[in-house]
C-alpha cells in the first residue's frame, strides 16, 4: 500500500530532495506504523517529536492505512 509522507524544519535534511511543502509517496506493507515509516525514511527517533496522521496527532505505534498522509516534525513552538 502507499502512504504520503512529509517532514518539517530540521528534519528536512534527511529528505534533501523534497522542496519546502513537498511530500512523497512510499510503498509500505499493511500493518506499518509511523515508527516503520521513520525507519524507511532514515529519521532518527531522538529527533522526531511529533507525528501527524491525516491532520491529527498520532502515536508512533499506531497502524497507518493505504492513502494516509503522515507528517513528522522535530520540537517546534514559538509564537
Amino acid at each position: 500500500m502507499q502512504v504520503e509522507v512529509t517532514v518539517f524544519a530540521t528534519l528536512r535534511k534527511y529528505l534533501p530532495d523534497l522542496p519546502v511543502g513537498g511530500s512523497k509517496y512510499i510503498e509500505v506493507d499493511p500493518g506499518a506504523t509511523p515508527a516503520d515509516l521513520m525507519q524507511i525514511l532514515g529519521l532518527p527517533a531522538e529527533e522526531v517529536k511529533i507525528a501527524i496522521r491525516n491532520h491529527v496527532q498520532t502515536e508512533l505505534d499506531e497502524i497507518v492505512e493505504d492513502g494516509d498522509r503522515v507528517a513528522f516534525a522535530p520540537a517546534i513552538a514559538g509564537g
Partner: protein
Amino acid sequence: MARKLLRINMSDLKATYEDIPKKWAKWGGRGMTSAIVFDEVDPACHPLGPHNKVVIAPGWVTGTPAAPSSGRSSFGGKSPLTGTIKESNAGGLSGQKIAKLGLAAIILEGTPAKDQWHYLVITKDGVEFKDASDLMGKGMYEIDEILWKDHPKTAVIGIGQAGEMKLSNAGISINDPENKPGRYAGRGGLGAVIGARGIKAIVIDDSGGPGVEIANKGLFEKGRKNLTEAIQEHALTKKDGGLNAYGTDVLMNIINEAGGLPTRNFSAGQFEGAAKISGEAIAEVVEKRDGEGMTGHGCHPGCIIQCSNIYPDESGKALVSCLEYETAFSLGSNCGIDDLDTIARMTRECNDLGLDTIEAGNSIAIAMEGGLLEFGDAEGALKLFDEIRNKTPLGRILGQGVEATAKAFGVHRVPTVKGQSMPAYEPRAIKGIGVTYATSPMGADHTSGYTIAPEIAGVSGKLDPLTDEGKADLSLAFQASTAFIDSSGYCLFVAFPILDIQTGFEGMVDSVAGVMGMDLTGDDAIALGKEILKMERLFNERAGFTKEDDRLPEFMRYEKLPPHDVVWSMADEELDKVYAWVHED
C-alpha cells in the same frame, strides 16, 4: 543602590524619582506594570484621557550580567483597543538600559497642552524634555536613525504615525541592536496612550548607570547557569534548533498540517500557500539571496535563543526584521496571501507606521471579506498602508483594528475577544488556546497562556487539541506561570526548556530569587502569577467586564472549520471556572 521609580508628568513636564512603596517592592515586569496600573489608574477612565498612564518596567533579572535571554520590558496601561488592563512586552534594547539606570519602572502620566509633542532623554542625571516638532509625522525607521545621531547606542522607544493619530492599533516600537524598529510591544494600542501623553519617543542612555543590584550572587549564579544549560540542551531552543534555524515561523507548516492555521478571515484551518510563507521558506530566501539577510538573529544583547531574522529583499539588502509566524499568518494566510516578499514589505510598513502586525493583518482580512479587495490581493493590501500614512478616513478605520473595520464593512465574522483579534491558532481546532483567548485579562492573546505547548508541540506532555476536557485547568496553569515569566524579564520562550527540564525551571526561579533576595520555590512562582492575574481581572471587573465577556465570537459556535469540520463547543460553565478562584481565595 535600591531600585527607584521614575515618574514623568507631561502636564507640568516634571520628573521625580521615588522610593518604591512596599506594596510594589516585590514586583518586576508585568507584575510591576499591572500593580501600578491597578493602584493608580481609574478602571473607568477613557484610555486616551488624562487619567490613564503608561508604565514601563524591566523584568526582575533584566540588566543583570549573563542571565540568558532576559532583555524584556513590559508596557502597561488601560488599552484603547480592549478597554481592559493591558501588558504588552517586548525585547530590543530598552529593558536592559532602564534596569541599568537603577529603575524598576517609569510611569508616564498627565497630558500636555494641545499639540505639544516632546521626546524624552533619560540618563543617569535625569530627564530632559525636548521639543519633538522635527520628529512629527515621521515613521520609526527615520526616528531611530535621527535619534541615534545625537544619542548613539541608546535604546529608543517610540511611536509611529499610528500613535500620533492615537489609533487603537498603535504599538510601541523599541529599537533592536542594529537600531531598527523591529521589536514591538504591539498589542492593545498602548502606542496611542503614549501619544495621548504628547510623547513621540523616549531615549534611554544608561551610560554611567548604577547597574542592577543582585541580593544573593551565589544563588543567582547557580540559577542562571542551570537555566542556560537547559536552553542550550533543549531541541527547540538550542543552537541550530527549530527556533534558531527557522524562527517562530517554523510553526507555519505544522499548525497548517494540524488544521489550526487561521485562513481567509478565520474561515478555514488550512492554507494552500502555507509552505511558501513558512520558516523553511524564509531560511531558503536568506540563503539564496546571500546578502544582509540572516536567521538566528538576536533581538537584544545576551539572547542565546536568537529566534529573530533579517529578511532580505530581492537584491539581498536587509528589508525587515523580524518576519515572524504571527506576521506571516495575519498578513499572509489570513489574507489569502502567499507572497513572502510582499508580506515582508507589509511587515516593514507596520514597523514604520507603528502598528501591531497581528491586528493590522486581521483588519485587512476583514476588509477583504467586506469587499474592499479580494482575498489574495497582495499589492492591494500593501497599498492600504498608504491610507494609514496619509491619514485618510479609510486608513483611520483600518488602524482602529478588527472590530472597527468589521463595523465599517458590515462583516459578522469577527474573530475577537474583548475587542482584540485572535492570533495564529484557530480555537475551534485547538481548544485549549481558545480558553486562553476567552478568559485572558488581555483579550484574545496566545502569549498569555500558550497551551499550544502540550496540544501541538508535545512540550510539557501531550494532549489532544480537538477535545474540550481538562482545557480550563490547563489554560489557567499556563496563564499563571506566564504571568510569572512575564515578570521575570526572561523571554517567554524559556518556557519550553523549563517545562521539559526540571533543573532549568529551578534555575529560572533561583535566578529571580537571587536578584530580588526573595525566598522562592516553583510553587511560589504560580502563586505570584495568580496574584498578578487577580489584580488584572479585578481591574477589568471595575472597568465593567463580566463573565459574558469571556466568550469566543458567536460564529465559531455554528460555522464548521475545515478540515476537521469542528465548531467551538466548550461549555460556558467551563470558561467561568477558570477565574472562579478570584472571588474565592
